[in-house]
């Protein structure tokens, strides 16, 4: 796993702890508690991270390894 991907995942996990909105009562768009909105954004960021990972960090050698060798 490339270090750049490890670093991004680590940053996501740090951001996930979210001490900054812990007691914040703001409603985003007037209805969404900011603590929930922030974590929904974390989910979107996770999707974007994994999109980047499968495009640029994919272990292509695993495809070659198994071609034509199913045996179960």
């Amino acid at each position, binding site marked *: 796993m490339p270090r750049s991907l490890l670093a991004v995942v680590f940053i996501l996990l740090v951001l996930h702890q979210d001490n900054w909105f812990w007691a914040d009562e703001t409603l985003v768009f007037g209805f969404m508690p900011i603590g929930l909105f922030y974590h929904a954004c974390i989910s979107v960021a996770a999707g974007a991270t994994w999109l980047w990972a499968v495009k640029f960090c994919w272990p292509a050698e695993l495809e070659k390894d*198994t071609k034509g060798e199913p045996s179960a």
Partner: protein
Amino acid sequence: MTPFLIIIGYLGLLLVLGFFASRLFTGTKSDYQLASHSIGPFLLLMSIFGTTMTAFALVGSTGEAFKEGIGVYGMLASSSGIIHSLCFFVVGVKLWSLGRRHGYTTQIQFFRDRLDSDRIGLLLFPILVGLVIPYLLIGVIAAGGVVETMTSGAFPDFFEATKGGIPRNLGSLAICGVVLCYVFFGGMRGTAWANAFQTMVFMVLGIVAFGVIASRLGGEETLLANLQKLGEAIPKEKLTRVEMSKMKFFTYLLIPLSVGMFPHLFQHWLTAKSASSFKLPIVMHPIFIMIVWVPCVLIGVWATTGFVKIPPPVQANANIVLPFLVKVKAGPVLGGFLTAGILAAVMSSLDSQFLCLGTMFSTDIVSHYAGRERFTDRQNVFITRGFIIAIVAVTYACSLAQPKSVFTLGIWCFSGFASLFPLVFAAVYWRRLTKWGAYAGVLATISAWIYFFRAAEWGKNRSYTIDVAGYEVMPVAAIFLASLVAMVGVSLVTRPPKAATLAKFFD
């Protein structure tokens, strides 16, 4: 009566789907257990997502948000979006590759081979089965509760004690029976198809439920006006995480690692047609989690606003908050469809787990000890089916005890699997892992798990945490640490694996 008829229609549809899947069944063991490695990206996404999102995700998340507030999303949903996909990327693809190369069907086959130890299978089999059964119970109990709540009033002459609703024991039995039928006949292909179909059903109907409940609770003209009215009425302790321990929230991060050790997910990974089939599930999994969890959490906190009166029996059993709101706010037709959506989420997990346990028994116990050539493919399929029936019966019998909280039961089950994660990770990436290290890790996990589960009064104390220097720590952190230290420590002081074994697994 309308919801009852819609539920019956939906269950009938699933049986038809299982029947069609069985028409494509080639009769081989590989086809029954792994769908002949034919599952492409879309079906893999839907089946993996459907399998990981159970009653825990819909019914449990709403109930927990009702009790604890919005923090439940961060505790389990957004963390799962990061960590589940990480497990698929780091462990899933690699295990798929090793599985295809060496012909594995189950986790235990992999561990036996990688650790060069036959007995590791005997140690792991009861532990994995024992940890899957509570997971199964989550679904079976929740399904029974949903059916009872949604059919109340349908049969006043037959079921007076439940106000005319089909008693939860009967509802659970019906759900077990339907899942058993389509798994029995359709095998992994039927399971994957049913999962994909049911995942679409519960995602779409979940969004519909959200819109309908928002409109009926708020009573305003537009959806936005309703959302704003409900949002402003959420009590402060549910709107924020002021009553939640930061350390507890942090240590919850370990729970989603459980997917790396779920035996049923291992089996789903091996159904993939190619490594590339994993790309779509890895990317879309966090987004799908968000689509399902955000509405459920919002519905849970809205139930605390006073716009709807939650009767004491529902308050006492938060698992039925969602079905209760659907029942009183959605009307009979929509309520029936939404119930089908909830049951879809439940059944899309039960099927994989039943199939997986049957596969483990026939492969890791019967074929392994009787010899691979001892039974024909058809006999192996027969044995798999037989064990599936036995497991369904045991699960149903256990469900009659009616444990109280779906969420708490799930957390204990996930804690056990998460604490075994170091084992699978080391088996894939650490050459120095020895069989004695693996034994030590597994035994440390199960000993610590039993110790803390007992301390939590076998799950009755639902807010149980460990006090570490004044901080609330989830038991999973201690169990995980015990597992990791025992595995690494013992591996380092015992003889390294043979070169020939390592050559099989490392380039």
